[in-house]
């Protein structure tokens, strides 16, 4: 059972969290202006890197806050957590 450091509550067990997929995928400003392909890219396509990956987590069973985390997908190690709106920090994997 991995610990995930909630930026508000501190480290808690993974079971308290909900995964939200890739971070920094913004809702398009004007969806109607996008081509079908561009829209499909927003809806269906996500990165799947081997290594550091910025993703969203929600501390569901705790403070219910969404936050971002950089996770190394090879090890599951969380390299950094940061609050929504903050830029992705530099990490060394």
């Amino acid at each position, binding site marked *: *059972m*991995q*610990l995930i450091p909630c930026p508000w509550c501190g*480290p808690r067990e993974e079971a308290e969290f*909900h995964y*939200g997929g890739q971070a920094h995928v*913004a*809702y*398009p400003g*004007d*969806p*109607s202006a*996008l081509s*079908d392909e561009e*829209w*499909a890219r*927003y*809806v*269906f396509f996500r990165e799947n890197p081997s290594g550091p990956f910025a993703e*969203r987590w*929600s501390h*569901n069973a705790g403070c*219910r*806050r*969404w936050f971002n985390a950089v996770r190394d997908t090879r*090890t*599951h*190690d969380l390299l950094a957590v940061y609050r*929504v*709106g903050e830029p992705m920090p530099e990490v060394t994997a």
Partner: protein
Amino acid sequence: MSFRTDTGGAIDRNTLLRFTFNGVEHTGHPGDTLASALLANGVHEIGSSVKLGRPRGVVAAGSEDPTSLVQVEAPFSEPMLLATTVELYDGLVARGLAGQGKLSSEPDPARYDAKHEHCDVLVVGAGPAGLVAALTAARSGARVVLVDEQNQAGGALLGVDEYLDDRPSAEWVADIVAELKSTPDVLVLERTTAFGMYQDGFVLALQKRTDHLGFAAPASVARQRVWRIRTRQTVLATGAHERPVVFADNDRPGIMLASSARTFLHHYGVLPGSRAVVFTTNDSAYCAAIDLAESGVDIAVVVDARPEAPARLAAECAARGIEVRAGQLVTGTEGPGRVTAVQVGDDRIACDALLVSGGWNPVVSLFSQARGTLRYDAELGAFVPGRELATVRVAGSATGELDLTACTRQGRDAGAGAAAAAGFTSGSQVPLPASDSRCTARSGLVLWRVPGNDDASFVDLQRDSTVADVLRATGAGLRSLEHIKRYTTIGTAHDQGKTSGMIAAGIVAEALGVELSEQRPTTFRPPFTSVSFAALAGRDRGDLHDPVRVTSIHPWHVQHGALFENVGQWKRPWYYPQPGEDLHAAVLRECRATRESVGMMDGSTLGKIDVQGRDAGEFLDMLYTNMMSNLKVGKIRYGVMCGVDGMVIDDGTVIRVGEERYIVTTTTGNAAKVLDWMEEWLQTEWPHLDVHCTSVTEHWATIPLVGPKSRAVLAAVAPSLDVSNEAFEFMTWHDTEVAGVPARVCRISFSGELAYEINVTAWHGLAVWEALMAAGERYGITPYGTETMHVLRAEKGYPIIGQETDATVTPQDLGMSWAVSKKKPDFIGKRSFARAENNRSDRKQLVGLLPVDPAVLLPEGSQIVETDRLPEPPVRMLGHVTSSYPSAALGRTFALALVRSGHERIGETLYVPVEDSLVPVTVTESVLYDKEGARRDG
């Protein structure tokens, strides 16, 4: 004949324990394991092997034993236990296994539980290194947990008869344990095996708490406990397992690891036989030979594979009349079952025990699980821990160190280092003990196998895997140990290859002509020792298996004989059968009563979310497909929610309670999901919006009051409310008092009938329900459950999210284009509605189906085909039946279905395969009852 010594060992000779093994009664003593008691009775044949049926005995004294598998039959049947780890109790009944056991068909009556424990320093293993590590950490003030799999601390010291600082080692151990136990925030767990090491200092350990009490185990005490330990730093002092040497017919009962024979002698007061041959590649087995000789065992010969025997030990043997043959090998054994003779060179030496030592394998399983890398130590012939981890240290023989003082020094350093890393400064230093051991810690010769009959040279005794199997694997071109493990199954039994894995790796390396240092060892995975499912389940069984959520009105439903349906974790009344009624009869009655007079249900499980803020309207406009910001205060609107892909995810009503405040309802199953969905958008996309969402699902009890007489019933309990159609219009709400309780009454309908939804705080739910029942008595008010609710809504073509939808269904597919705003510039899902895929004419669409035979009930989930005869496969499926019921109102059966191009097919006849026949059905609109909506106003 008894093989019990007169003195010595940690057993109580004054107390007899009776037990039965393979149908024969024996006795043993407190302190025995089943294995030691059997050996004391001269019983060496425990079971037989899984594939070849060869007799098997006891190879090792502890949990590394590959062969002594038994099934305990009483007090409770439990398969696949090791006789070496079953503590003896009075009345134990067990039998040996032929490699596999049988699960009991009875529920296990014992309690099992789990407990979380947090510490600064976890020490695994209470041998000399672990004890010193734990005490060093404890003296620093750290929170320490010490786990050890034995029933008492001491580790390897339990199996020897040695002195530390000129006193019995047991005294040294006892002093340390006493100090640990009297130190605050130190937890010493005996009979506890750390079986899994995971990320972030998470270690699972299984404690056997009452197994050893047998029939006397108190029912109220958890028999086994899974400790969920979260530690900042870990010291692994897991020791080393003695490694055998493989030779022909090395699997006979009576062939045992030398150190294990020594352990049976010193810890249990048991002799392995009358006449023993010792076969070794290193010094340590000499101590076994000398100790056993001094206890009366005739040591026929010590066969030392090394060209020269160690002079001092050889002299000690000579002084006791023990022959030592250096530079020789055991090449085979004989015996009908148990070994009766050993072949050494050209000599056949009679014996009833063969004690083998091939060196030592550090126990690196947990270190490896913790992602520690392993390195091959050529001198030791074993994989040892590589680089230390930031939070995991290794001490003692688990590092490959064999000298006791050096081991304890490592323990002290590791304990101090771990405590320091956790932020504690060391306390007074723990002195290191001096040992009188005659066996020096010299490494021996690395010898994996003695050439001979490969088909009878067993590498993994439990899997019946031989040298021949390994060579077959390498001969077939396999090179990776992982592949060979799977091909040969070596290391996949209960013991996870504790005694066989290293040897297999060595034989593979030899066969391939590669260095072991270039081979990657197989990955160690939890659990280190077997853990029963009962222990893993713990208390999450029976009523506690999954929470049962109930509403405030639940006790009434129980009292009135409701049968329940699970909706998510909720228990909802399914129907309320009267005597003699089955589901269909009860539901027809409930439906009829509701459509003809008045019915009532418990709708408290509906999700309810309070949405407040200046931008609440704008927010809801984005979430729902239709417009919510223009809803007037006092009004209610039905809404559909889609994902960004345009697929329906939930529906419900939106109630505007104030200029900046709405209450939205969700389906029962999606309450938490919808709130999460809202928070996700608010927090991650639109933090600028002034909106806050709060769940009030359980604050409110919700009671739909449904049917033409609902107005009269409501009027009777809400005297201050004008219930007339003019004053209380459809899709509006009023705050009032119902049965004297503040209530919010909404006029909404999920059945097409005149209906009200009464909301009161959950504390008042039961009282208001009862008041409504009383007020409705003169109209024959009928409580109904989810089944009737489903029929009533299906007759009106109202879809149920999750039944008519499955994440591939759009509002348009459901015929709900009317609920999709054309005016709003954007909302979640809107852009997807313009995708080509969403506009295909052959999308599956919601329609009604009327079986041509009005008595035929279509099974839900049935497929739908186009023709009255099935063509050759593949048959084109047009869709499936989503809901199907008999209807009191329609006087016939009906169904809802998702059908390709369904909306264009209205009027067509399609076919539904039901068992062997094709049932003809007529496609209709989804609304089958009261199409003109005449019943809505009562």
